[in-house]
């Protein structure tokens, strides 16, 4: 599964994307964020403030309880500031 990071989430983690294979109990976007937090300080820092990181599954905005089964790409990013 490809994971993409943007803006300060990308800066804190230190990479813009990576391929990961989460264990089977990681079922939702929230599970995935929690699992990523355990991978190192940089991840813990990126996901430190609860609710501050948004997610997209296959390029669509989703809520934390969205399932990731079958997803090709999950992205994490701060609230958007476009326009």
């Amino acid at each position, binding site marked *: 599964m490809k994971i993409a990071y943007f803006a300060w989430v990308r800066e804190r983690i230190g990479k813009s994307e990576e391929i990961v294979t989460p264990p089977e109990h990681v079922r939702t976007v929230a599970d995935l964020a929690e699992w990523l937090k355990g991978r190192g300080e940089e991840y813990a820092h990126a996901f430190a403030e609860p609710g501050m990181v948004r997610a997209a599954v296959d390029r*669509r905005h989703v809520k934390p309880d969205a399932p990731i089964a079958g997803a090709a790409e999950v992205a994490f990013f701060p609230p958007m*500031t476009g326009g």
Partner: protein
Amino acid sequence: MADIRVQAADFDVAAEVAAVQAGAQDVGAVVTFTGVCRSDGGRLAALELEHYPGMAEEEIARVAAEAERRWPLKGLCVIHRFGLIRPGENIVLVVTASAHRQAAFEAASFLMDYLKTRAPFWKKEHLADGTSGGWVAPRQEDDEATARWE
């Protein structure tokens, strides 16, 4: 029908308006919104706009399709730039065309509110003193502006 572009290059408002009008019959009202980089009283040297390639276009297309469902539009164009943008330079353009003014105004306002809170773009400030001002924080007013369309 909507013409959607995510690009580093600048855009020409007059050319986009002409293109929207050329593709439509009996347009009575054309509204344009141009978002421009402010210097914030000289504090800012530039904004760096990061985006999520692929999703940016798709999300804008979803918002545009929703606008076309809600209002009887005859033409619609959205262009959002990314990369380094200096004060006075254009960031985003929305053009809406309709038979009557209310649809054109409301659709343009709706599109901008949704682009602000849903289009995957992030702004980083580069300050005039050479330092980084960090990432722009989302504005509460923008969330409230989006909420009024729900």
